[in-house]
C-alpha cells in the first residue's frame, strides 16, 4: 500500500513537471521557433512608444537572451522560491509562487488567481453535489425500472443534457428564471461564502443547476449502464439468496460496485472544473478562473494564461491522484497490483 502511494505521488509529480515544460514551451519556446526575437517578446512588456534600447534592456532583464533551459529554470524557481525583477529604477520582488506579471494590468498573476479560485471552487462544489446525487439516483432508478416511462423520460432528458451546450441551457434558464420569473438573480452576482452563505448559495443556484444538468446527464447514463451490468452479476444473486432485502442488495452490493468507475470520472471532472468552468462562468459572468482565462486569452496576456493553465493542470493532477488513492481504498483488488 505504501509503495503504491509513493509510486502514485512520484507519478503525479512527474506529470506536473511535464505539464510545466509543455506550458512553458508553448508560451516561450514555440514563439522563438516561429521566429519571434527576444526583443519582439519583450516588446509586449513595454509600451508601444518604447525605444529599441528600452526593449533590449527589458529583454535582458527578463532573461530572454538566456538559453531556454536557464529560462525554464528561472521560471520554475519563480514558482517555488519567488523571483526578483530588476526594473532599473528599483527591484520588484515577486514572492513565491511567482507566475510573473500581467502584460495588461502590471499586477502579479498569483494573487489574481487566488482571488478567483473561491468563485470557481464554489461553483464546482455546489454543482458536483447536485450532479452526483441527481445523476446517480436517477441512473439507479432507471436501471431498476428499465423500459418504464420513468426510464425513458429521464434517459431522454439525459440525452438532451449531454447534447445541449451550457451557453444554450444557461441562456435559456437566465431568460426564464432570472429575467422572466425573477426567481434568481441575473448573471454576475457573486457573494463570498464567508460574507453571507445564504446569498452565496442563492446567487450560485442557477449556475449550479445549469452546470450540474450537463454532468448529471452523463452520470445518470453511466450509472444506469453500470447498474444494469452489476445487477446481473452472480454476487447479486448470492446477496439475494442470503435473504438480504432488495434495497440493501441494490445499495450495498449493486451500487457499491457501480460507483467505483464513476469515482474515477468524478475526480477528473471535478479537477477540470476547479481549473475553470469556462462556459458557465462566461454565461453567468462569474468572476472565476474560467472567465479569467478567457479574458487573458482575448488580450493575449501570456503570464495570466500560463498561470491559469498551470493551476488548472495542477488541480486535475491532484484530483486524479486523490482518486487513485481512494480507488485503492474502494477496490481491494487494486492494492495487490
Amino acid at each position: 500500500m505504501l509503495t503504491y502511494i509513493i509510486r502514485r505521488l512520484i507519478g503525479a509529480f512527474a506529470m506536473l513537471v511535464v505539464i510545466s515544460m509543455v506550458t512553458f514551451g508553448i508560451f516561450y519556446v514555440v514563439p522563438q521557433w516561429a521566429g519571434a526575437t527576444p526583443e519582439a517578446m519583450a516588446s509586449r512588456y513595454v509600451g508601444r512608444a518604447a525605444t529599441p534600447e528600452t526593449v533590449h534592456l527589458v529583454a535582458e532583464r527578463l532573461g530572454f537572451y538566456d538559453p531556454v533551459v536557464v529560462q525554464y529554470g528561472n521560471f520554475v524557481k519563480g514558482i517555488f522560491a519567488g523571483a526578483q525583477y530588476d526594473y532599473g529604477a528599483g527591484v520588484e520582488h515577486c514572492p513565491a509562487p511567482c507566475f510573473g506579471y500581467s502584460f495588461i494590468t502590471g499586477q502579479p498573476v498569483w494573487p489574481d488567481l487566488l482571488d478567483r479560485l473561491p468563485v470557481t471552487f464554489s461553483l464546482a462544489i455546489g454543482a458536483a453535489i447536485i450532479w452526483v446525487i441527481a445523476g446517480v439516483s436517477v441512473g439507479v432508478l432507471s436501471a431498476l425500472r428499465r423500459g418504464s416511462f420513468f426510464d425513458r423520460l429521464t434517459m431522454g432528458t439525459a440525452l438532451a443534457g449531454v447534447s445541449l451546450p451550457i451557453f444554450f441551457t444557461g441562456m435559456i434558464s437566465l431568460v426564464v428564471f432570472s429575467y422572466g420569473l425573477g426567481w434568481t438573480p441575473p448573471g454576475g452576482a457573486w457573494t463570498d461564502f464567508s460574507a453571507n452563505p445564504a446569498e452565496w448559495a442563492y446567487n450560485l443556484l442557477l449556475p449550479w443547476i445549469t452546470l450540474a444538468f450537463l454532468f448529471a446527464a452523463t452520470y445518470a447514463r453511466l450509472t444506469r449502464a453500470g447498474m444494469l451490468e452489476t445487477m446481473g452479476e452472480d454476487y447479486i444473486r448470492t446477496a439475494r439468496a442470503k435473504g438480504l432485502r432488495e434495497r440493501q442488495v441494490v445499495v450495498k452490493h449493486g451500487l457499491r460496485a457501480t460507483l467505483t468507475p464513476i469515482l474515477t470520472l468524478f475526480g477528473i471532472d471535478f479537477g477540470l472544473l476547479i481549473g475553470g468552468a469556462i462556459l458557465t462562468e462566461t454565461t453567468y459572468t462569474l468572476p472565476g478562473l474560467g472567465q479569467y482565462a478567457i479574458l487573458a486569452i482575448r488580450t493575449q496576456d501570456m503570464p495570466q494564461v500560463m498561470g491559469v493553465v498551470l493551476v488548472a493542470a495542477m488541480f486535475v493532477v491532484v484530483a486524479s491522484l486523490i482518486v487513485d488513492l481512494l480507488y485503492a481504498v474502494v477496490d481491494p483488488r487494486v492494492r495487490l497490483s
Partner: protein
Amino acid sequence: MSFLDVKDLKIHFPTDDGLVKSVDGLSFGVERGKTLGIVGESGSGKSVTSQSILGLHKGGRARLSGEIWLDGEELIEASTEHVRSLRGKKMAMIFQDPLSSMHPYYTVGQQIIEAYRIHNDVSKQVARKHAIDMLGRVGIPEPAKRVDSYPHEFSGGMRQRAMIAMALSCDPELLIADEPTTALDVTVQAQILDLMRDLQREFNSALIIITHDLGVVAELSDDILVMYGGKCVEYGTAEDVFYRPEHPYTWGLLGSMPRLDREPTERLLPIKGSPPSLINVPPGCAFHPRCPYAERTGDRATTEVPALAETEGGHLVRCHMSREERRGLWENEIKPVLETQ
C-alpha cells in the same frame, strides 16, 4: 409429505420469441438428512428449478405455477417478503463459480457476517466470531486470519469452502448446491464433496445437488432426478438410476461418462444432437429426435407426450416403450457395452 415437496412445478418465461418453458410440470421431494441429485444438460431447467425454490424468480418475468412445500409451508403463493425471510435461514444455496458469486469488494468475513446478521440479531463481534467458527468448520486453515481476506486472495477450493460456510452460517434445513464443483480442480472437487457430505450429516439438512456430472451425484445422492427439456424423464433411488436405468437419455448420460478403467482408445458414447429448444419443444416425446429407439414406438414418439409412469417401487420413467422392452434393451444392449468399456 416430505420436508421439501415440489408438485407440478411450472416455470415459464415470456420472451419476444415465444414462451420459454424452462420447467414444465416437475414433482419431487426431499427428506431431512437425504440428498437428491438433479441431473441434466445445460438448459434442462435444473438451475431455474433450484432458484425458484428459493423464490429468486419471484416478482420477475417468470410465470410460476404448481406448489412448493417447505416444512409444511407453501412458497409459491407466499409473500415475497416471507420467502425472503426464509432465504438464507431455512434454505440456502451454494453457487457454481465462487469467484463471481462473492462480492469482490467485501472481505469473506464481511460477507459471512452479513449473511448471519440478516437472520440473527447479534452484534458484529458475535457475528464475526461465528464467521471465524464457520470458516474453521469448513476446513479453512487459520480462520481468524483468513476472515479478513478478500475472495480474490483465496484459491478456488478455499473460496468454495467459504461459500459453503456462508450458506451454512444460519443452519439452513434445506441446502441447494448448484454445480458446486464445476469450477474447481478435480483434486479439490473430491474434498468439497466430502465436506458437503460431512456437513450434511452434522446439520441433518436436506440437500439438493444440481449437476451435469453423474460422478458427483453418484458420490452423494440418495435419490436422482434426471431432467430433459424442462421435464423429469427418470426419477428414482441412486441404485435404480445407476444400476437399473430405464430411460434412453439416462443410458446416454451413463455412456458419456469418462471412466478411468476404460481403454484410452475407446470412444465415449455421446448422446447425438443437441438439447431441445425450450420455445419449440419437439412434439411428442421431447427426446425423440435424439433417441436411437424412437422408431420402436412408431407415431407415438412424435405425437404423444409420454407419461411419467412408475415402473417399480417408486422408480419413475417417462418413456413410450414398455417396461419389458426397456429392461430388455438395458440388460442385452446397453449394460454389456458399458461394462466391457
